[in-house]
């Protein structure tokens, strides 16, 4: 799952590679699209980037030696997204991942349930998070990835996946309840 797995994309791929790719990698197109959609926050851009990532994966396919095809593909999708963000929206990447979090009182489950019940509000709250928080949440809650897979995809050490998720969830709770002051005031 390291960078070397992606290998060199210089080989000419034949019909057999095509069939294998179709069987192993293409079934994960939805996962690729969903990750790109949430990293880029725009459907139009993410179609282009998902397509680019898929073709890139194909060029690197000879370097894939079995294992978790979804994680392998999502790693490429993520890298393609970040390259795109660096070029087109560098400001978004400037938030430090390890920023200090101010301890805050836990939000009550009831307040969160009310705030989280609204798809629009949930979607907006998720989009306000910095990409590095957003991606761990999307991978864990929408894609159902294990910590090991998240570590492989996002290139963060497996030991820090748990704290990354803790921070991301806290940010999301805050974004959710801040966008609805009346609900937030009901907590405690």
């Amino acid at each position, binding site marked *: 799952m390291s960078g070397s797995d992606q290998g060199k994309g210089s080989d000419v791929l*034949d019909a057999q*590679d095509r069939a294998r790719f179709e069987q192993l990698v293409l079934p994960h197109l939805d996962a690729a699209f969903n990750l790109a959609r949430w990293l880029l926050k725009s459907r139009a851009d993410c179609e282009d980037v998902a397509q680019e990532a898929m073709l890139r994966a*194909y*060029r690197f396919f000879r370097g894939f030696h079995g294992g978790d095809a979804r994680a392998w593909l999502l790693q490429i999708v993520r890298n393609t997204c970040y390259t795109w963000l660096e070029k087109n929206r560098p400001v978004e990447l400037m938030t430090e991942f390890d920023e200090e979090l101010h301890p805050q009182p836990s939000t*009550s489950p009831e307040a969160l349930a009310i705030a989280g019940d609204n798809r629009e509000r949930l979607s907006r709250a998720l989009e306000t998070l910095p990409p590095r928080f957003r991606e761990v949440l999307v991978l864990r809650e929408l894609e159902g990835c294990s910590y090991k897979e998240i570590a492989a995809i996002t290139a963060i050490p497996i030991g820090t996946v748990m704290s990354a998720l*803790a921070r991301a969830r806290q940010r999301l709770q805050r974004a959710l309840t801040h966008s609805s002051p009346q609900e937030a005031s009901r907590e405690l």
Partner: protein
Amino acid sequence: MSCDFTRTVLHGYLDGELDAAGAAEFESHLESCRECTTALGAEESLRSSLQRSGLYENAPVALRKKIRAGLDAATASPAALRIPAWRWLAVAAAILLVGSISWFAWWRPARDSASTAPFTAAEIIDAHVRSLQPGHLTDVASTDNHTVKPWFDGKLAFVPPVKNFADEGFQLVGGRLDVLGGQNVAALVYSRRKHIINVFVLPTKEPDTPIHPPGLRQGYQWRHWRRQGMEYCAISDVSDSDLYELAQLLYQ
């Protein structure tokens, strides 16, 4: 507010990533820590909101098609590696010739007189759509060709060749009796990544023909050929390249 577990172990517990000892330790901590209990409730509520929200977005069909086209373009055809560029004209002409002959052979009878064609495009599509309705797909459901093949014994006046191509990505799902153009036919059912492919088989006295160019209507594609006294028609909503791949496997 001061419990360290709230911001660390609680999440490993929530995600089922703690080992048995770690989980037991956290559970006993939960009994005495009100903060963690509240926080866990909040996290569970948030998780269920996220998972029920329908925020997951699937790839549009158009994107899938674009990607397939891109993959095709990046794949070398065996011919392209050997044949010098100047010969492409001759190859193209030959393909055109064969294509138009097949087109006439297959389409003219269907249009002019139904008597020479065993079935029409509309009949194939109807039979395929009918098979997709609940409970209609298979009379014998098995991924084992040695179960499906004997099932046809005595039910038809011919023995359809039954093969499983699971290794090639076409899983045999089962078989069924069907009627096409007033004749009893065998229907072999394959699945390709959740898509169903019906292959209709019936005997013929016509000589072998190659796999004809695809027919397309109402979003369904079909491929037709004759081989060793059997008439075949494979139909599905999968891409034509998938359908052609299966046709080639069956043709061998």
